[in-house]
């Protein structure tokens, strides 16, 4: 079951149809929001597992992995979907191990296990058991976690946000919005820096101020000037990478660089489903371009003659981040690799 080689059997038609619908929904923007995408992915995988003709672990792993490959190929920028595939794969592997009476507490292809478990590893696995029932339990658990992740993060708001603190955030993010609302009586003062989508930032500012949070909407250019006064930077991200780096909305790097320069702590809200075992080397993500109309309207005559570079996301190095807040609590960037190895099987880092 090496991740790199090995031909996967093709999926049946119905599964492909489901995948295509899922992919189309995301591409056309019918499905938006990281949490919704995560839930949709898990539901899709559950469907595929339920429909699987063969219930052996190997078959299920291959089916889920084939699905994952199709999804990642079609949506290379939706890291969350790939993460969910890895989580489900992990669930299947855990079940399989439990069946083979191996300790599942310790995952990974360690030398020790390699040597000790060598005979059973090479032997064919008992495939008569229907793994689907326990896997479905795992998936239900996962769905529960996804559902609860926002509230779990917001539950920690009071620990991090104190009365009269000046908080800075960048762009609009549902999670940050809820997080700030959850600070309850510790009403902070908020500086909301406009992201690439000005209207969304403005809408978020309106919603927050109607909730009694004092919000000031500022332009991105003002970040450097305001940063010395800020007590804390709280941001939501697209994805958290292995090693504690972060992929965020375009323009985020400027904010975190300013924060680092003035030694303002940067708190990143990242539910576990956003943790991705990807390294900072994958240029498809850093070079990815957003549609150019985010930068310039097609109206202008120049649009046909110029090349517009509107980056989709910014890469923020780990040393810019002070703290990650996940469902499980706060953790430092250097601890992310540990969380990753708990969440995913190293075999699945590359789908």
């Amino acid at each position: 079951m090496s991740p790199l080689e090995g031909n996967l059997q093709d999926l049946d038609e119905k599964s492909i149809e489901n995948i295509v619908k899922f992919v189309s929904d995301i591409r056309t923007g019918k499905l938006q929001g990281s949490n919704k995408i995560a839930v949709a992915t898990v539901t899709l995988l559950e469907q595929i597992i339920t429909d699987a003709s063969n219930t052996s672990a190997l078959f299920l792993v291959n089916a889920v992995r084939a699905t994952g490959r199709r999804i990642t190929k079609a949506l290379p920028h939706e890291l969350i979907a790939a993460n969910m595939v890895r989580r489900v794969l992990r669930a299947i592997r855990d079940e399989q191990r439990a069946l083979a009476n191996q300790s599942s507490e310790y995952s990974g292809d360690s030398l020790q296990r390699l040597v000790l478990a060598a005979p059973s590893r090479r032997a064919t696995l008992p495939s008569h058991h229907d793994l689907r029932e326990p896997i479905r339990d795992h998936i239900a658990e996962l769905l529960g976690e996804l559902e609860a992740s926002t509230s779990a993060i917001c539950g920690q708001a009071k620990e991090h946000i104190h009365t009269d603190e000046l908080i800075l955030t960048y762009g609009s993010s549902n999670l940050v919005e809820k997080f700030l609302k959850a600070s309850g009586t510790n009403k902070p003062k908020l500086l909301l820096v406009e992201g690439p989508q000005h209207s969304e930032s403005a809408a978020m500012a309106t919603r927050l101020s109607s909730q009694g949070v004092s919000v000031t909407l500022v332009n991105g250019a003002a970040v450097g000037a305001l940063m010395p006064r800020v007590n804390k930077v709280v941001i939501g991200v697209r994805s958290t990478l292995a090693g504690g780096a972060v992929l965020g909305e375009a323009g985020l790097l400027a904010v975190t660089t300013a924060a680092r320069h003035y030694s303002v702590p940067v708190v990143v809200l990242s539910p576990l489903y956003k943790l991705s075992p990807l390294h900072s080397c994958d240029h498809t993500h850093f070079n990815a371009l957003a549609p150019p109309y985010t930068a310039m309207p097609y109206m202008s005559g120049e649009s046909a003659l110029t090349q517009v570079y509107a980056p989709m996301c910014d890469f923020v190095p780990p040393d810019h981040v002070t703290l990650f807040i996940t469902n499980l609590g706060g953790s430092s960037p250097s601890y992310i690799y540990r969380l990753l190895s708990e969440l995913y099987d190293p075999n699945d880092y590359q789908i």
Partner: protein
Amino acid sequence: MKKEEVQEIFLKILREEEDVSVGVAAIKTLLTVIENYKVATVRELDLNLQLAVDAMRHCDQPVTAISSGCELFMRFITFAKLDVKSFEECEQIMLQRGRIFLDTLLEARGKVAKQSLPFISDGCKILTHSRSRVVLAAMLEAVKANKRFQVFVTYSSPDNSGKRMHKELVAAGIEATLILDSAVGYIMEQVDIVMIGAEGITESGGIINKIGTYCLAMSASELKRPVYVLTESFKFSRIYPLNQQDIPIEFKYLSSVIASGGFGEATPFSGLYTPCIHYSTLYRFGHFDTFRR
């Protein structure tokens, strides 16, 4: 069993199999020792192996990889000592495990090369130090994947092993330039990434590698160039050096230099690359996580 015999086997493997690294050769030697020198008890076997390891440490080869490889081997094949009844059975299991272990190690380089593929992007410039089989394998893999890149290789005195690396790269059709060791700082601003191998990984997260690596890494850190260390996981060593002086002397000098007693003035062969830079990258390439905790 004679010390010389073991050394003979070890050096023969190194001579005959061009592509094999010192660590793997050491493990192969140990396997041969188990097979060839029949003993009756586990204790004897243990003593034999330890003797063999000691013999190999005095072969005028870099010791770091030998010691970490052998340590690993000893640790894992000897796990079986207590839970099996007869000694013959025990020996058989040890041999079997040893072979599995060796096979996995031999696969490791290819795996590392494949894993490092995404790190070499099309059109990038890479700086490498000395000659490393893993780095070479990774670059060959990248060429196979139609990637276009340019490599700068340091001469890496005193043994100028960079020359050989350069030759091999050029033979593979890679655009490679040989540079002086002292030109590392000059060239650093042009390169996109630094990619090096390692002789050993310390528990502190640093690496032990050919002399000059520390300088290279500091220069890279100053100019904020990412440093990637490609290494197989049998190179993880159980040492925790606090500074350059703290590295065991036999890691730093060839045994012949130590024997002559002249290491006070001689340039150390290997240096420590302290963990300050990109030490998460070390874990990236480890396939077996055993040593981490």
